[in-house]
């Protein structure tokens, strides 16, 4: 299972970075989304995978007996997902706005911050 996840993480990172290097604004955002998911999976993977042992102490016991699933990475991922939800919705609105204002999807044509000296 770990090896499959490792490959998926690698694939998501590679795809994310590849898409970010393309010239299209839309692909840039898709790349960012993929990269974010790759990071989340990486946290999940590196936290250690344990099947079917939630960290819940049942009524009669006082400590956890077996090896249990670490809840911390899951909390981290949940936080990261919520944050990237906000960032991605911002990104979508931003590229839509950028398309209206700049009237291009081509990142190479976005260069008035370098040339326009009067702003």
């Amino acid at each position, binding site marked *: 299972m770990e090896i499959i996840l490792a490959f998926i993480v690698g694939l998501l990172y590679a795809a994310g970075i590849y898409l970010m290097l393309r010239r299209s604004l839309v692909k840039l955002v898709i790349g960012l989304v993929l990269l974010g998911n790759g990071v989340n999976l990486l946290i999940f993977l590196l936290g250690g995978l344990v099947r079917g042992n939630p960290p819940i102490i049942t009524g009669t016991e006082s400590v956890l007996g077996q090896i249990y699933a670490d809840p911390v990475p899951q909390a981290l991922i949940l936080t990261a997902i919520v*944050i990237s939800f906000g960032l991605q919705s911002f990104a979508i609105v931003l590229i839509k706005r*950028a398309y209206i204002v700049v009237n291009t999807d081509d990142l190479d044509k976005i*260069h008035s911050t370098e040339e326009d000296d009067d702003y």
Partner: protein
Amino acid sequence: MITNLIILPVLLQFSLAIILLFFWKKIEIQKKLSIVGSILSVIVAGTLFNTVYGSEILTLQAGGWMAPFGISFVADAFSTTMILLASLSSAAVSMFSIVTIKKARMKFGYFPSFHFLVMGLNGAFLTGDIFNLYVWFEVIIISSFVFITLGGKKVQIEGAVKYFTLNFLASMVFLTAIAVLYGLAGSLNMADLSGKIKSIENQGLVQVTAILFLVGFGIKSAIFPLYFWLPDSYHTPQAAISSIFAGLLTKVGIYALLRVFSLVFIPDEFMKTLVVILAGLTLVSGGLGALVQTNMRKMFSYLIVCHIGYMIGGLGMFTVAALSGAVFYLIHDIIIKTNLFLIGGLVYKINGELNMKRMGGIYANYPALSLLIAVPLFSLVGVPPLSGFWPKIDLFAESFTTSNYFLLGCFIFGSIITLLVITRFWSEAFWKKMENRERRPHIRYYDQAPAYEKALLIIPILFLSLISLYIGIGAENIFRLSDTIATELVDNSAYINAVLGLSK
């Protein structure tokens, strides 16, 4: 109860932002609340600083969960100093924005976002947990996204695309580093990590993680070669916004670097050399960038990049004296860079121009004002006995004693370039004769403004200039403070003991 004082700077800004959200469209109320809240936060920050400085480190375990299992908040001399500086400069900016931010922009949540931003800064300074630091960074950048797009002009949107992409990428690199670190050490508490990281067998992977952190924070604090987004985006929003970005956003990256590299990853020879080289190149490339700009605000943006090099250089040498210099420079830089962009805003109000070639005549028309502006400009250059001079002595001397001659050269180069750039700015904007130019209708010029607006433009600059003067003339006190901080950074046992609740 005393420990809850730690979280008060965060809570105050948070509550303020929530209250402001309730008054979404009523900007007159928002303005007043923002001023009152900012002054309150200065008082709170001052109290916290007073409680911590000179006595022991305060910690707060959120929810009563013991460290390293819960989230710790730590107030030591370094973090409380940063909070004090952040609240001082944000109070000044809050006042400045009342008259400079356009009404239409204020209606889109300028003030709530402003206080969310300051909340994020305070949280980042206080937290003792590395994932929590990530969360505060996100709070900061999400609020800054609001700022950078506020107005929605073409240049702004283009700047925002670059700013967003690079900051998102930095966050992802940072998060990757946290993931690897958690996989390696099984902890997120920085004090706890400090002990655990040494006992990890695979030190090679630790080194890689350290580099990941360096890249993540490096993008945020704009060090060479990761700074290109900064001069492309910082000049696009309005002056008040740029000044809070310039003063605090890159500096929180520096703070994180200093914190993480003194607590978790103690730099070895390779790391020191790497950071020193990066610092030197940051100084040179930022300086050269500033030299060729004719746009005032772009030039200031490159100066930010240039001066980041001093602080990174101090970190790279990693001795008590060098860190003390870096911390002193950080203290000086937060105030001065905020002020510099406020001055930029004021000059724009007077001249209606951003291109330095078309400016002029400020000294002839406003001699007293020019004298006031000269104070921060001279401090920036480092004319003794003003504030920029003192940390540079420390840094220069230390780079000489640790025989980092390359860095010394870059330090001197950076200083000379700064002098050159500021002199040029002074002669172009202040001494040169202003040609009679037509006034542009959409700008509200300084001399058309009523007296109270003029006062609100001048008071923040005066306030920050006075702080700069104090840092310069009362350098003895600041030295004592920065020495305390640097000693605590190098010998981190007090911090670790305070967080983990160990006895000394």
